[in-house]
């Protein structure tokens, strides 16, 4: 069972992601590269959320805040004339880490739904700070005139190069998460998820472990934020809106929690659905409705919504869990 369906899908996905720029150049359409860059960046964010939510059982409903923090660090520095990526990126990570430390230290005093809501509260506060930054565009956001500069080393404005930078960040993130989860630290975190009291009883300072985990996840997501700001050349409070945090949760759950590749699969599936569903509907259903003047493809969310509900009801463990179950049934 070395090569089961589950690993095959993950391998194919990685291979496809590696080949995207080649394909984009081949068909001469850079937009697909742009879509995939976004996928990869959000997959980093989703993977970091999975670290605390899937493995650690800490459901953060405010994870998008770090996307905003990382992005705003890049945006504000660029606005003030500091373009060097050697300053922007490390600072984005440090600031995200500090925020995660403060938020985590306070939030981890609560449990369950209260934890969900307190993380939301902090994210909302940061969102409104973004809204009140009138020097940096407030609600309207801030256009970033120049991407992060890395001297002659890397040109971030080159689409394929930037894509591979993001992809490298994703692979590093996956590797870090994999190492963490399989370390003593990771075992303790997962132990605390299923029984916090017992872990404490056998001498693990779970609060400190969880806090560390929370800070690591926030930092990684801050990196995703810095990448996202560079990708869109734009940053606005909307990046931190609570629905974005909800989207991230959906991506992780859809792909499969507490699995290494689940969040990546979930992100790709969610964003691909967003792009593909209206397209497919416009080709298949719309022609039947031409006389009525209705375009059903504009109502694609009426399909997406129940689809999500069905995933919850019938495909527990998300797509990855679904694949795993098929693999197990498959005679080999």
């Amino acid at each position, binding site marked *: 069972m070395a090569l089961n*369906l589950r690993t*095959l*899908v993950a391998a*194919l996905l990685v291979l*496809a992601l590696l080949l995207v720029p080649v*394909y984009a150049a081949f*068909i001469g*359409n*850079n*937009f*697909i590269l*742009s879509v995939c860059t976004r996928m990869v960046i959000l997959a980093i964010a989703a993977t970091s959320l999975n670290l605390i939510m899937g493995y650690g059982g800490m459901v953060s409903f405010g994870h998008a805040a770090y996307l905003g923090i990382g992005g705003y660090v890049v945006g504000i520095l660029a606005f003030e004339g500091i373009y060097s990526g050697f300053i922007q990126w490390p600072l984005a990570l440090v600031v995200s880490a500090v925020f995660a430390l403060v938020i985590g230290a306070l939030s981890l005093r609560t449990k369950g739904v209260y934890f969900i809501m307190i993380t939301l509260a902090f994210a909302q506060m940061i969102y409104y700070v973004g*809204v009140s930054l009138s020097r940096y565009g*407030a*609600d*309207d*956001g801030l*256009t970033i*005139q120049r991407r992060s500069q890395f001297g002659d080393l890397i040109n971030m404005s080159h689409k394929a190069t930037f894509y591979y930078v993001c992809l490298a960040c994703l692979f590093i993130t996956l590797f870090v998460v994999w190492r963490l989860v399989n370390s003593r630290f990771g075992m303790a975190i997962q132990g605390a998820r299923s029984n916090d009291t017992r872990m404490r009883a056998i001498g693990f300072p779970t609060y400190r472990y969880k806090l560390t985990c929370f800070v690591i996840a926030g930092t990684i997501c801050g990196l995703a934020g810095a990448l996202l700001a560079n990708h*869109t*050349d*734009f940053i*606005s409070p*909307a*990046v931190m809106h609570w629905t974005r945090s909800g989207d991230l949760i959906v991506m992780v759950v859809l792909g499969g929690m507490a699995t290494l590749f689940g969040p990546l699969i979930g992100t790709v599936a969610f964003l691909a659905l967003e792009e593909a569903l209206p397209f497919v509907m416009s080709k298949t259903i719309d022609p039947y409705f031409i006389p009525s003047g209705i375009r059903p493809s*504009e109502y694609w969310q009426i399909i997406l919504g129940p689809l999500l509900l069905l995933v919850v009801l019938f495909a527990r463990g998300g797509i990855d869990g679904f694949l795993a179950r*098929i693999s197990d049934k*498959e005679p080999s």
Partner: protein
Amino acid sequence: MRKSVLAAGAALLLAAVPAAAQQKSVKIGFISTFSGPTAVIGNDMRNAFELALDQMGRKMGGLPVEVVYEDDQQKPEVGKQKTEKMIESDKVDFIVGYIWSNVLLASVKPIVDSKTFLVVANAGATQVAGELCSPYIFSTSWTNDQTPQAVAAYMDKKGIKTVYLIGPNYAAGKENLGGMKTFFKGKVVGEDYTKWPDQLDFSAELSKARAANPDAIYTFYPGAAGVQFLNQYAQAGMQGKIPLYSTFVVDSLSLPRQKDAALGIMTAYQWGADLPNDANKKFVSGFMEKYKSEPSFYGAQAYDAANLVASAVAGVKGDLSKKDAVQAALKKADFKSVRGAFKFGNNNYPVQNFYMQEVVKDGANYKLKTVATAMENASDPHHGKCSMK
């Protein structure tokens, strides 16, 4: 199982390869808001644009026209993404549309960078007329502070000494109220900005305005928020007590829902359905016939944008490869605008008249009636900041 997955993957890849070598056509990307409460505006613009295309036989300079419509969801980052999609994936020759100033501001960079021609059909962000002006950007509308300028002049004439300002907190809201502050000669006794587009309850602001007891209240709320503002203004018992002046609150889209709450309100536009010129008659009657409702100024601007693009394509005889020639052809503005005389200033913004209009009841319908010319041949206040001469 494994085989079928591979096969499905291969099929997907193949399906995504576009059909080779498309036929020659004019490709236009149209960005507006087609979802959410402000989709009425986007639909009105799309209807007017489609009408213009129908009237020209869906051909420009002998070439068939292809239009791609995209929804910006009224969000800057979505608008920017859709703009990039049009440039990179659809490879459009012209981009038309934009209702919202903040969406436009976020989208300008990729358009100018890729040297795609943009015809702004509503959003009036002042920077785009000033510092950010570009030979690739044209407008069939105005800058955000122009209509308040017209209203301010009218208020001065009416002898109003104090005004209280209420508006939405986004690029256009700040510039619109800013225009009133700059051009109104009396005193601004208070100003409130509300969260946009989420905040729709204006009770706190209206209470403050009433307590300040000004001669008039001035406001700017486009789309559905304008309906809510007028409702609450009436419910608070302020209608008829403190006069309300506004821009972009009453239009033919919102009037059917504002009804009596809007009666008597004065506003300013650069266009009216009752302007007596042939192009306008053709537009208004064609629109009424096709869509059974009266067009709004949003539609009028989109209609002009379609005709502007058509005039440029005809001007270069369908050869869109030479950017300079297209630019010159656009600048000539060789088309009949529904607002009458139309020419571009140095920054590619129109030099045009503004009219005062009043909401009147016409049978069961509510209409805007042009009552005076507020400004003649007005250039926008920002053309001096544009580097183009």
